[in-house]
């Protein structure tokens, strides 16, 4: 029998087969040094190659810059290089012997809230950059609010440019206190603070020699060691059926498998399950993979499940434990981040995607809009446009199998699609 680690292990170069994956997002404004920080992480972890280094060295020389501009590593599109800004979410990769990292590098300007939400949606951890000279500003609050709304499990506040504040503990403590004061209203479970200089490298990968008063870990130490094993929901078993596997070969003549990715909880062969929406019950006969039977399936594994009984199941159905079921609803509230150029239409109809289930819905009512700079609910202003966040009541054409977003990010999230343009116009978190 195979374990979730897969086939028998034959070779282990530097523990590579035992590494975890951490996805994190970085948020900061143009001048907070975000690109420099990412460049520093890549550079100090030796993830930058010679040809990349040569290319940015040449550009830095051409522009007459004093240091090699590490920020150039992350500016991908021509328009971005020309304007010196980041337009779109960019994904970066690096690894240390402990972990592989995926960075969703998101632009920080106000008009790009939709990109921050996009980057945050898959992150285990958010780095929020604060310029030590300016302290907690409106934008810091906006980033923290989005981290809270998207339920990123871990937040690291990096107080950057400490070199420009004489590496003063007082400057760091002020940011620490100000951030804690306003974030008390938010729902962030794990927040840490690190004083750094991305430009000079203090406390990024290597410990600073300029800040003896700081006894905590470096940023890299946190990234390598933060506990992410509990970031997924291992309690409430949810298996959205993605695709029905029917080989119709001699060997597997009557095989009927339900392929999907576990969205919550743990499944084992023999478990009693219900299938939604039909409500029929059965037992799991086997959990299959090409490498052999799977002993236990948990998020985010992709497996194929077979059942003891012949039940009509198709994509969009959900297999759950008999004694622990999601809510089945056609009307519910979501916090929505609007991403369309055309404003949200109250009474408008949109296509909706939730796990593997498609539906249509009508947006019945805007309850309030958030002022994400002040965290105030605006009950009088219900015009929801690009980059706005609002609480909305929706009604769907068919019952949806939902959990609150706080309980499960997989079964608590949905997207809205404009049926005229097919564009994704809304990101919804079920309240």
């Amino acid at each position: 029998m195979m374990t979730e680690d897969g086939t028998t292990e034959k070779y282990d170069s530097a523990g590579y087969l035992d590494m975890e994956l951490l996805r994190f997002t970085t948020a900061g404004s143009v001048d907070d040094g975000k690109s420099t920080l990412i460049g520093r992480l890549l550079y100090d972890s030796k993830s930058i190659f010679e040809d990349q280094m040569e290319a940015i060295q040449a550009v830095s020389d051409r522009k007459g810059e004093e240091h090699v501009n590490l920020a150039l590593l992350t500016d991908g599109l021509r328009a971005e290089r020309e304007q010196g800004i980041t337009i779109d979410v960019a994904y970066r990769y690096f690894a240390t012997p402990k972990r592989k990292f995926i960075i969703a590098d998101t632009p920080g300007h106000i008009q790009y809230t939709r990109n921050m939400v996009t980057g945050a949606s898959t992150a285990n951890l958010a780095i929020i950059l604060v310029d030590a000279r300016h302290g907690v500003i409106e934008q810091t609050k906006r980033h923290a609010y989005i981290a809270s709304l998207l339920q990123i499990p871990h937040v690291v506040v990096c107080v950057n440019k400490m070199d420009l504040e004489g590496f003063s503990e007082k400057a760091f403590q002020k940011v620490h206190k100000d951030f804690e004061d306003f974030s008390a209203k938010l729902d962030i479970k794990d927040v840490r603070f690190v004083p750094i200089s991305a430009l000079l490298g203090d406390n990024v990968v290597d410990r600073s020699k300029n800040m003896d008063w700081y006894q905590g870990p470096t940023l890299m130490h946190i990234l390598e060691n933060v506990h992410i094993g509990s970031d997924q929901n291992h309690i409430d078993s949810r298996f959205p059926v993605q695709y029905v596997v029917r080989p119709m070969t001699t060997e597997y003549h009557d095989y009927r498998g339900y392929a999907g990715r576990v969205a919550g909880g743990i499944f084992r062969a023999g478990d009693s399950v219900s299938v939604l929406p039909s409500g029929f019950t059965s037992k799991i006969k086997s959990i299959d993979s090409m490498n052999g039977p799977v002993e236990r399936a948990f998020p985010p594994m992709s497996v194929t499940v077979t059942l003891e009984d012949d039940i009509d199941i198709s994509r969009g159905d959900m297999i759950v434990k008999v004694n622990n079921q999601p809510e089945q609803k056609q009307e519910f509230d979501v916090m929505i981040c609007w991403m369309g150029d055309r404003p949200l239409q109250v009474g408008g109809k949109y296509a909706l995607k939730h796990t593997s289930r498609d539906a249509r819905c009508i947006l019945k009512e805007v309850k309030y809009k958030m002022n994400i700079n002040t965290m105030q609910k605006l009950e009088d202003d219900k015009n929801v446009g690009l980059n706005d966040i609002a609480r909305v009541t929706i009604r769907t054409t068919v019952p949806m199998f939902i959990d609150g977003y706080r309980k499960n990010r997989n079964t608590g999230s949905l997207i809205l699609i404009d049926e005229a343009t097919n564009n994704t116009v809304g990101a919804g978190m079920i309240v």
Partner: protein
Amino acid sequence: MESYKLTHLRELEAESMYVLREVAAQFENPVLLFSGGKDSIVVTHLARKAFWPAKIPFPLMHIDTGHNFEETIQFRDEMVEKIGARLIVASVQESIDSGRVVEETGVNASRNALQITPLLDAIEKHKFDCAMGGARRDEEKARAKERFFSHRDDFGQWDPKNQRPELWNIFNGKKNMGEHFRVFPISNWTEMDVWQYILLEDIAIPNLYFTHMRKCFERDGMLLAYADFMQLKESEQVKEMQVRFRTIGDLTCTGATLSSASTLEDIIDEVASTRVTERGGRSDDKRSEAAMEDRKKQGYF
């Protein structure tokens, strides 16, 4: 307490299988672009796993530049036979013969960019609504901004500044008539991940990736394999060398590296200690700082 965590390779594998199943579910007529390189071999392997014990429910398509390594074609045909997949070959030579594209001339002539026309022609001819490929975001900076599900207009073009946001793992494959999608199931893999996974899963790859003796010559600091259709400059000399390839593409623009790596373990050690990106060996990317972005906008992979 029992621990429920996956290694990073298994998490990447699960993500890619999920993407492949979404494609099979959301599109009517998808196709997997197969180049014979390690990345498309890994995607093919992941597709087998995603639909096992059924066969891969979509065809593989090879855009044949006519300047391929023989080994690639042989490997392709054996693999397709073994896994029982359906193969379609679209030919650059046919597009040249029919006058749809004009062959580049001169010593640096490459058919790499010419793949765009037969690719788009084949997509139209077979009415494919989704073409999957083995591109990875770590390969090149324009690719760092690519989505898993990348929407193309009815001219097959990519508009990098107006991409659909991609949230959680919910992919929006809705489109109008005539439009199609490019989907990249291994977007989040690095070169190292691909090699480690090939080792972990014991996946067969063409022997071009391992060390061998070959006639090569040096051009602009790169080693190119010699073939009789290649034009040499006067100063260039063909020599027998011990080399291997880090990427396998069109023969005219794929650089070889001097290497004695004869096993996957050797290759992994080499990748771990190397200081040049794998596309650093591709002359097609060296044409300008935005070379890849420009080709992608026109419909290149």
